[in-house]
């Protein structure tokens, strides 16, 4: 049980190919009008000190390794929030050659916040909802659903050298995603 994370969740915000619409709304939450610091939330730029990963955008092929890398670098307990229609399903970009159709094709997502773009009120609601999920988690390790290479554990941590596998191995392993055909 993670009791204190609920009172002091630190955010990490990552733009995985978003149009900046959702990013502006996330920053609006942090600004004085919506003020999510009243929940003890701080926007850190550092994955190893963060509890909540906010991802916007449909995960472009350039961004997917970064998303997995950031997720692996976050210490447990942690939650992932997909912000906006693109991050949830791929949105208007779904099925295009350069995107990966949402965050959940690479890492497990705890809360989906739909909307194009998501309203600040919705984002606050989603973050507060994720705190309940965070409270139920513990230090047990969580893994990305897909890495570029095989997942290996080295001295209690995900071995990130496995991430540097070839693109070909990824394409081979990912035939179940992508276009709906």
């Amino acid at each position, binding site marked *: 049980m*993670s*009791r*204190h*994370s609920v*009172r*002091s*969740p630190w955010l990490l915000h990552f733009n995985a190919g978003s149009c900046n619409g959702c990013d502006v709304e996330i920053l609006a939450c942090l600004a*004085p009008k919506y*003020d999510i*610091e*009243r*929940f*003890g939330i701080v926007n*850190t*730029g*550092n994955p*190893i*000190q963060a*509890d909540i990963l906010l991802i916007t955008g449909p995960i472009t092929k350039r961004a997917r390794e970064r998303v997995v890398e950031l997720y692996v*670098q976050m*210490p*447990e*307990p942690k939650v992932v929030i997909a912000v906006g229609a693109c991050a949830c399903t791929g949105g208007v970009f779904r099925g295009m050659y350069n995107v990966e159709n949402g965050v959940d094709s690479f890492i497990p997502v705890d809360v989906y916040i739909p909307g194009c773009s998501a309203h600040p009120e919705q984002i606050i609601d989603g973050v507060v909802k994720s705190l309940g999920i965070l409270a139920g988690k513990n*230090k047990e*390790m969580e893994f990305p659903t897909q890495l570029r290479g095989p997942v290996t554990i080295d001295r209690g*941590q995900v071995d990130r050298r496995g991430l540097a596998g070839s693109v070909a191995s990824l394409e081979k392993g990912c035939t179940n995603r992508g276009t709906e055909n």
Partner: protein
Amino acid sequence: MSYWIAFPAIIAAPVLGGLLHGADRVIRARMQSRKGPPLLQPFLDLLKLLEKRQFIVHSYHALLALAHMIVLWVSIGMLFFNSDLLMVIYFHLLATLLLVVAGYSVRSVFSNMGATRELVASLTYEPVFVLCVIALFTQYGTFQPAGILTSANPPLYTLPFIFFALLIALPVKLKKSPFDISEAHQEIIGGVEIEFSGFYKGVLLVSKWLDYVYVYSFLYLFSGGQLGLALAIFVGVFVLLAAVDNATARVTYGEMNRITLPLVIILVVINYVVLSIQRVAI
């Protein structure tokens, strides 16, 4: 300070510092017409960090963070136990250097850059603290806090320009805007803190609180032990620092040295000249 007050004060130093940090966050939020986090938020942050899974880069790096906190605590203990003020300052510098070595010991560009900036920042504020102590010595003839605190006229009245010089150095020491170059959260993501997580990030958080205690106990010396004056100094400096932190943008480290050092040296020289004229007149 008698031993019976000093001992509990040293034990309670991190708690006092944490409350100061929490109050600082609240007052900054209120200045921006926000509600802000609860007063005890720093303690909640600490508890959270203690229960996170730990990532350690290498054991030496983690040990240096721990050593940083302990040496900082020792320097505060020395201040409370009426030790030599110069020794207190050098112990404090030692704590900073341990953190700098920790920053250089990992292969992170931001960490290395933060360590360099930490050194530049200490180059800016340490001379001010040393000059301040030397001025106190020339005025009161002692390097010990007790001698200053028991004198009839408080240093704030006899050394006002030195106090202003210290005020200029405080944002550098406490890593506040416009001189928060060594932390710079949007720019180098906390500098030397970047590779610390979990328990060891908590240790650095406690060191930050101890820094608050160190600075405010130094300001207490300027009240000469008069509680009303001490309270006025504390509240005034606290609100001033928060206001300046809110109202200003970060400068570069070159600009920081160009702004602070000449100003501080001029203020100190003015104070020495005034004092010597007073002596001649008497």
